[in-house]
Each structure stands twice: as structure tokens, then as C-alpha cells.
């Protein structure tokens, strides 16, 4: 494959050197466009980029005229380049000024300005048609194969400038795109950066127009960047993926145009669009297929949790799907997908006898049980009637993110039993040997060393002493702790919730 490609390149260079130039120019321009395109996509300024591309015509003509009339120099490339950059900046400045100073919204202002400035260029071309020889057709449609040495130099310089600019100011570009207010507040010159980005856009657009023409240049900017946007979760990655896609898109389009003998500019943009459509369908996270797959394999979280709960209550016995369905009052076939999803996640182990919990599954199920019983206790305190408790808690237990449940536990004063008299599982996620926890979450039998003591109990306990927690008193509202000092003396402390919260314990 590589050898074939090499042979092909050699034959191309030999037979037609202009193709080689086109290949080089296209590679440079398409990757640079793709880089700048990332910021255009993220800042949602595609339409503005299009406007900059069109307004170029006026700048090119003005640059041409100036050199022709003042110096008699016709088609001076440098003057036309500078002219097009200036006209790009003027367009952006006009757009931002008019949209800020009038009630007309930005998209409408862009529409006015870019057609206006583009048309002005057209008027100038026809008015000075005797001295100006600009091929409007090529301006609109591009001419990749007509790329000359001067163009190549221009494109190379532009690419270098733009790449260096992005590399050097990456952090600033990132933050003015993501959070302008913060960028301004930490002293980043937001407006200056906007204009530098616009200038870079103008520069790459000028080289892009030479290649694919003013109509298609937007595709060169945006298609690879948008494709990368569907693939990446970090701006850094998005930039180089976009550059890569710009290059592959160009190569595909260009080779196709050689074989099929079609306009290369159009072929490149078609290839870039095809790449986008392909990624749009197959992107692993943000693609169409991934989305369908998520919908198809989605299992109601409630079913998952109900199944775990049922198997936990069976206390080690294997439960068949029919039995689980019986408990939950649902049809077995409805639960099959949820059960097999749990199996895949390693929470349930299924065999001929039925389903049992794995260690992870047992942990998860106890976590849910704790949430359920804490919610019941909470609802009881909030005045919900006894017979409705279970049903309400059954809904609410699905709100079981750790923070919320621990908060509930704390607010309720770390209750031991729920309103039906069943034990509420302890906070086993935090009660791990070696962990630093508040005394209040400890249960009977836990032991540990006092790590620090707050102001409320500073006269009763000292760090370094060991504790063993006894049964609670006073309806579970008084913590009883037997404390052993470093010299071996023992005493018993009776603490309320606040005091118990004030002592932190390193668990044995």
C-alpha cells in the first residue's frame, strides 16, 4: 500500500509537477483551516467566518486597484492579501459595532454587512473592468490546480503564523471561548484576542479561497472541526483530531477528483462532509448509533434497584426470575433485560437455581436498603401516614446518591431503626478500618482512636484516647462511649448528637 502510494506520488511529480504543488498547498491549507475552525465552531461564529470570506472580494479589489493606480503594478499578491485581511477586520468591526449600537440582532447585521461589502467588491470590479483583471469565476469556485509558487509561499507563511499563534496563546483562546467574563476579570485582553482570531481567520480564509473558492471555504473551516467536536472531550484533542481530519478529507477528495476528473475543490468539501456524516452516525459517545444503543439497552433504574432489593431480602437463597417478578408484582419477561444488565455489571450471579448477589451486588443492595429505611424514617418525621410510608419511600429510595443519604442520616440524628422496627444498615461506605469519621456515625461495637476533638467536648475527651462504642441510650439519642486513656484508665461518656459530631475517630 505504502509502496503503491509512493510510486503514485513519484509518477505524479514526474508527469505533472503542478499536482504535487496542489497536494502540498491543499495539505497546508486544509489542516490550518481545520485548526482555526475549532474556535469558530465553539464560538458559534460560522456565519461570521462566511462573512469574512465574502468580504475578501472588496479587499482584494482595493489592494489590486491601489497598486495598479499608484505604482502601476498589476495583480500584486501581497497588496491583495493585506487588502483582504483589512476588509475582513473591517467587516467584523462593523458587525460588532452595529449590533451593539442598534437593536438589530447580530445575525441580521452580518447578513447586511457581508452582502454589502461583497457587492461593493463586485461593483468595483465591473466599474474598473478596463484596468482590473480578476477572474471572478475562480474567486467563487477556486482553482487548486492553478496554485503557483507565490501562492505556496503565502500559504506556508500563513500556516506557520496561525499554528504558532494557536500554540502560544492556547490557554487564552480556551478561556475566552469558554468563559469570557472570567477571561476579562483576570486581565486577558479579550477584544484584542477576538481581533487576532479574526485576523487568523482572514489569513486562512484567503488561502482557502485560492483553493476551493469563496463559497466552499466555510466547509473547509467548519466540517473537520465539527467532526472532531463529536469525537473529543478536550479542546487539545479536538484541535489535533480536527487538523488530522482536515488533512484526510483533503486527501480523499483530491485523489477522488484526480481519478474521476472532477473539480478538486468541490470534491474536497464533499469528502469533508462525508467524513462528518460518517462520524455523526458512528461516534462512540455523541453519535447517532450510540444514542440508539443507549435507548435500546436502557433499563429503568427503578427495576434494577428493585431486583437487587428482592435478592438481598432472600438472604443468600437463589431467586428465580419468576420469584423476583412475584415479589415485585411484574411480569418476568419485563425484568429479564434488567437482570441480565445487572449480570453484565457483575452485581448479580445467575445460574440454574436462579440469581444470587455478588459481593459488589450485596454492597449496592445494602446501600439501597439504607436509603430506603432512612427515607421511611424521614417521611415518618415529616408526618406521612404509616400505611403510605413504604410506598413513598419506595419511590424516594431511588434518590440515593451518597451525599443526599448521608445528609438525611445526619439530619435524622443517625437513627438505628426505621419506623417498622427494622434495622437501618450502618454507613458502611465510611465505616472502613483506618478511615477518619465522626463519632456520631459509629454503631455499637465499633472501636477506634480519637483523632481530634472540637470545642463542644474539649473538656471530656482528648485525642489519642481509644474508644469503644456501647449501645445507645435515650431512644437512640445518647451515644454511650467507653474511653480508655493512654495510661489505661477507663471512663464512660454520654454524648448527644452535636457532641458526638464534634469528635473525629480513626477507626481500628
Amino acid at each position, binding site marked *: 500500500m505504502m509502496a503503491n502510494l509512493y510510486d503514485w506520488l513519484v509518477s505524479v511529480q514526474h508527469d505533472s509537477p503542478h499536482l504535487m504543488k496542489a497536494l502540498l498547498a491543499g495539505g497546508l491549507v486544509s489542516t490550518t483551516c481545520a485548526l482555526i475552525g475549532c474556535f469558530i465552531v465553539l464560538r458559534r461564529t460560522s456565519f461570521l467566518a462566511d462573512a469574512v470570506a465574502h468580504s475578501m472580494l472588496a479587499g482584494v479589489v482595493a489592494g489590486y486597484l491601489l497598486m495598479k493606480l499608484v505604482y502601476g503594478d498589476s495583480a500584486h499578491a501581497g497588496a491583495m492579501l493585506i487588502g483582504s485581511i483589512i476588509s475582513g477586520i473591517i467587516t467584523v468591526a462593523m458587525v460588532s459595532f452595529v449590533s451593539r449600537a442598534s437593536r438589530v440582532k447580530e445575525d441580521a447585521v452580518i447578513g447586511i454587512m457581508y452582502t454589502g461589502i461583497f457587492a461593493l467588491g463586485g461593483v468595483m470590479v465591473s466599474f474598473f473592468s478596463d484596468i482590473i483583471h480578476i477572474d471572478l469565476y475562480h474567486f467563487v469556485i477556486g482553482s487548486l490546480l492553478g496554485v503557483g509558487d507565490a501562492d505556496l509561499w503565502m500559504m506556508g507563511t500563513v500556516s506557520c503564523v496561525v499554528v504558532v499563534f494557536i500554540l502560544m496563546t492556547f*490557554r487564552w483562546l480556551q478561556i475566552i471561548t469558554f468563559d469570557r*467574563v472570567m477571561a476579562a476579570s483576570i486581565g486577558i485582553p479579550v477584544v484584542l484576542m477576538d481581533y487576532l482570531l479574526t485576523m487568523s481567520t482572514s489569513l486562512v480564509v484567503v488561502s482557502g479561497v485560492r483553493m476551493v473558492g469563496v463559497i466552499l471555504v466555510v466547509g473547509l473551516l467548519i466540517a473537520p472541526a465539527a467532526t472532531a467536536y463529536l469525537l473529543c472531550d478536550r479542546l487539545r484533542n479536538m484541535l489535533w483530531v480536527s487538523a488530522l481530519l482536515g488533512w484526510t478529507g483533503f486527501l480523499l477528495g483530491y485523489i477522488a477528483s484526480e481519478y474521476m476528473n472532477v473539480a478538486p475543490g468541490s470534491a474536497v468539501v464533499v469528502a469533508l462532509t462525508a467524513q462528518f456524516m460518517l462520524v455523526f452516525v458512528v461516534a462512540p459517545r455523541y453519535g447517532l448509533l450510540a444514542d440508539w444503543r443507549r435507548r435500546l439497552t436502557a433499563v429503568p433504574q427503578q427495576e434494577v434497584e428493585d431486583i437487587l432489593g428482592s435478592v438481598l431480602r432472600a438472604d443468600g437463597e437463589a431467586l428465580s426470575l419468576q420469584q423476583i417478578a412475584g415479589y415485585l408484582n411484574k411480569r418476568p419477561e419485563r425484568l429479564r433485560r434488567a437482570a441480565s444488565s445487572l449480570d453484565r455489571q457483575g452485581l448479580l450471579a445467575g445460574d440454574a437455581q436462579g440469581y444470587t448477589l455478588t459481593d459488589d451486588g450485596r454492597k449496592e443492595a445494602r446501600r439501597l436498603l439504607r436509603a430506603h429505611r432512612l427515607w421511611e424514617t424521614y417521611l415518618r418525621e415529616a408526618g406521612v401516614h404509616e400505611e403510605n410510608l413504604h410506598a413513598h419511600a419506595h419511590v424516594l429510595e431511588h434518590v440515593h446518591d451518597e451525599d443526599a443519604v448521608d445528609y438525611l442520616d445526619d439530619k435524622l440524628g443517625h437513627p438505628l431503626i426505621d419506623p417498622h422496627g427494622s434495622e437501618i444498615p450502618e454507613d458502611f461506605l465510611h465505616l472502613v478500618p483506618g478511615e477518619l469519621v465522626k463519632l456520631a456515625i459509629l454503631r455499637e461495637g465499633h472501636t477506634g482512636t480519637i483523632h481530634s476533638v472540637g470545642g463542644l467536648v474539649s473538656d471530656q475527651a482528648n485525642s489519642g484516647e481509644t474508644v469503644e462504642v456501647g449501645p445507645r441510650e435515650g431512644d437512640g439519642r445518647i451515644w454511650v462511649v467507653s474511653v480508655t486513656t493512654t495510661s489505661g484508665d477507663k471512663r464512660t461518656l454520654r454524648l448527644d448528637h452535636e457532641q458526638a459530631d464534634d469528635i473525629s475517630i480513626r477507626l481500628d
Partner: protein
Amino acid sequence: MNTDVSAIDVQNLTVSYGPVPALLDVSVTIPQGQLVGIIGPNGSGKSTFIKSLLGFLRPDFGDIRLFDEPIENSKGRVAYVPQRGAVDWDFPVTVREVALMGRYAKRPIWQNLTKEDRDIADEALEMVRMSDLRNRQIGQLSGGQQQRVFMARAMAQGGDILLLDEPFAGVDAATEHAILDVLERTKASGRTLVVVHHDLTTAAEYFDTIMLLKQRLFAYGTPDQVMHPELLSQVYEGKLRVFATMDGDSSAAGDES
């Protein structure tokens, strides 16, 4: 830092987006170490006030001094937590990268971020308990988690003034708790906090001082002074039926504090 000068000193601030001013002739002086709440109906200029303090909006006229210096000299001293709706959650950026942005003010553009910066950002994420999710893209977080990421960014920046735009809007109880905790700790370290707040029933409980804003500054003082039903219903016009029924509660909360 000289502790005598006030943290924020605003004189005759007027800001407008079009013919109608969003803020008109607002003058307020906030001493250091205060926890100030800004309340007011929708569109009353609360966010505009915050953005002016950040130097993002150019006032029509008026003067803002932070620690007796013009805003241009206080770049980076003001950290900011944006309103949730103002953030592009699809932006390709991870939790850790957002926290790292807090360090951008400290490093000139030609310097790379150092290990120290990364450690500070990680520590801030640890403080809001977001370390486990540090490599997630920010759109894949719950509302409360998203809020906490930006809190971490503000802490990593470590400015003397912290501005928060509606941090409690649409967060769960645990996050509300975590945010309050961070606010208290920040205040205890001597920093000044200004918080845009939408919930009148909790405002008196959360803040030392309250600004009641609707284009003009209607009241500025302790919760007892500001949270008067007549004053509030004048500012909120007819939209305050909820508050009228909670009248008893709110004054009770005011008395406690």
C-alpha cells in the same frame, strides 16, 4: 493587605445595554470579610452588577474601586462562579481543566502551568469532593456537581473577593450544604463574598448583609433592615404572593440570626 479599606466601593454606577439602564446610580460600600447577598426580581440588574465588578462591562459612568484601587489594577483578585445557564456545558473541557483555569491568572501566557498549579487545582477539587470525576467532560455531571466544579475553580484562583451568580439555583440539598460550607470557610479566611440569590425565604438565614436591587439599590443592610414585607412587595410588585404567606417564617428566621 490593609484591612481598613473597604473591599468593594461603588459610586454612582450606571450601566446600560440599550436605551434603558440596567443599573442606575448604584452606590454601595462593602467592608472586607462580609458575606453579602444580592436579591431582586428577574432582570433587576443583579448579574450586571456582578459583571461590572469583574470589569467585564464598561459602565456608562460611575466609579468602582476594589481595595481602594481601580478595577484595572485588581485583575485576578476577584474570583467568579457563573450562573449555570451562562455556561456552555457541551464545551470540550474536563472537570480538572476547569479547576486549572483558576490558576491562569497566576501564570503569564508564555509560562506553562506548574505542578504546584495542578496540586492546588486538585486540592480544590478534593475540597468540593469532585476528585473522582476529574476526567469527566463537564456536561456529564449532575447540576450540583457542575456547580461544585466552578466553586473549585474559584477556590483554586484564591482571590480576595468571590462573586457567585445564583449558586443555589436548582441544586440538591447536599450541594446546597456543601456550597454554604465553602462560603463559610471562605468568609472565615477573611475574604469578601457577594452572592446573587433568588430565594427570599433563605436569604436572611444565609447572609450577613443584603442588597435589594432593582435597577436602583433599594436597600442595603442587615437582613432585619432589608427583609421588610412592605419594601419587598414594593420591589417585587405583585409577584410576591408566595412571600406574603411565608411572612411569619421569614421574620422568624431574621430574628434568629
